[in-house]
């Protein structure tokens, strides 16, 4: 059950992007998400896409991993796109769709959403239920849509469905999809190419100005590193407890909700007690080695800011300048 868990998203590899300073990567990834909202016409979006593509293709991370990180959010992306299609009402309208085409669209949309939801369920639910879920979701979506298309005119809710699609809505929807994909690609690239420990160090450095306000930045970073270090250890313990309780007759997959809660508690209580015990031991060990909260500490790993990092930061500034100049 717990064997196929992969912790974090870091992929081993080596390229110019891997060698960049994690501070620069962290700050620039955040910066990218802020500036992408400045893009509002085809030329700025083209620039943003080319820029991201260039980084993604030269980063040495296989494209399938980006596809994998976008996949879970496909539902949200399409949902946003369709809602946008019907709510966005500026610019020139496309010729009004006649009622038969409407129904076809509704049915296709319903089937599409039902398919997506069904695929989500397939992992965990018995196979014979799948057709049932599929039928129900399709039916519900088609019903809702047909109901909405017939005069349910809540002006207060601004839910007036006239089924007129505007040209700008299509373009805007395309931009939204593009923007989401770009944002997710950029932020997953950061976690793909940076070790969690490096990222923690980078966070500590980036937050260090908060030290002026007596904000315990280094303690926070220490807690993050301890957490990261102990996730695999505690996962192993969880596995042990799981096996021990299973051998005593606990069954975590079967039974009604009441049974399940009792089974889960038989797993949770030992886990909490083990964590507290480990905490006691670790605290003693840290104290024995002279750890005092609030004192200045040195680090085994030092981050180094190289020349390529300057170029990386500069490229983002140039992109921003391009956005400011060419946006409408």
């Amino acid at each position: 059950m717990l064997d196929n868990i992969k912790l974090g998203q870091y992929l081993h590899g080596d390229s110019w992007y891997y060698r960049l300073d994690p501070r620069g990567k962290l700050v620039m990834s955040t910066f990218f998400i802020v500036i992408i909202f400045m893009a509002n016409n085809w030329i700025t979006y083209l620039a943003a896409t080319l820029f991201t593509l260039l980084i993604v293709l030269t980063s040495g991370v296989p494209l399938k991993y980006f596809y994998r990180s976008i996949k879970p959010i496909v539902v949200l992306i399409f949902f946003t796109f369709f809602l946008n299609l019907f709510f966005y009402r500026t610019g020139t309208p496309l010729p009004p769709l006649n009622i038969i085409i409407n129904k076809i669209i509704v049915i296709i949309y319903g089937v599409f959403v039902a398919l997506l939801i069904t695929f989500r369920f397939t992992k965990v639910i018995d196979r014979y239920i799948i057709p049932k879920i599929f039928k129900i979701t399709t039916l519900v979506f088609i019903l809702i849509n047909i109901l909405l298309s017939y005069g349910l005119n809540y002006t207060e809710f601004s839910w007036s469905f006239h089924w007129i699609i505007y040209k700008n809505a299509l373009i805007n929807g395309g931009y939204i999809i593009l923007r989401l994909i770009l944002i997710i690609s950029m932020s997953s690239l950061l976690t793909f190419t940076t070790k969690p420990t490096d990222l923690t160090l980078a966070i500590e450095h980036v937050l260090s100005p908060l030290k002026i306000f007596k904000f315990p930045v280094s303690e926070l970073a220490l807690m993050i590193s301890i957490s990261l270090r102990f996730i695999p250890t505690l996962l192993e313990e969880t596995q042990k407890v799981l096996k021990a309780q299973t051998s005593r007759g606990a069954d975590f997959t079967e039974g009604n909700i009441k049974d399940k809660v009792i089974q889960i508690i038989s797993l949770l209580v030992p886990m909490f007690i083990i964590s507290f015990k480990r905490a006691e031991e670790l605290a003693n060990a840290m104290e024995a080695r002279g750890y005092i909260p609030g004192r200045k500490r040195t680090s085994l790993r030092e981050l180094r800011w190289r020349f390529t990092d300057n170029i990386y930061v500069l490229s983002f500034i140039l992109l921003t300048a391009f956005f400011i100049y060419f946006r409408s």
Partner: protein
Amino acid sequence: MKTNHQKVLVIVEIALLTALAVIFDLIANLTQIQLFPNGGSISISMLPVFVLAYRRGLIPGLVSGLLLGTLQTILGVTYYLFFLQFLLDYTLAYGLVGFAGVFFKWVQSNNNKYQIIGIISGTILGGFLRYFSHVLSGVIYWARYIDSTDSVDFSKGVTWGDWLFSMGYNATYMVPSVIICAIILVIFNKVARRIYTVD
């Protein structure tokens, strides 16, 4: 005045229980239906934050919540749509769960009735604050992000539909999560009281 040992112990406990929360999240992802994209799964990952808030008080609870949000970012299980959404859905949402620690004194009291009332109200308070944070993020997403390619635009009004949609969507996973957490936490108080008390 806290001794150095106590300070270190609290720091380490926060770190380990947050690690435990991440593990619960991982287990939940394997065993449960992952239908909602942004953090919306019925999971017990809030449990360690509640336990810490009842065991060590308000501040450790808050720190543990914030840490959980940050940890999920580092591990890359988050969905980053825009900056405010990110803050509201992860950092702030989990951080607010720590407010259950307001009822620290109640849970620590010797009266069994007070303990249970404290646990339940704390769980509801923490859960509600997290729910509110998600609702707010949803409203901003649906009301602002869709309509405007420009940026998050605050000049337009928010319709009731936006609120209703966001509240409904987020309630689908938050309400079961809070109920399950409350049940488990109350049973903890009965079968393993030492989780909440420091000897």
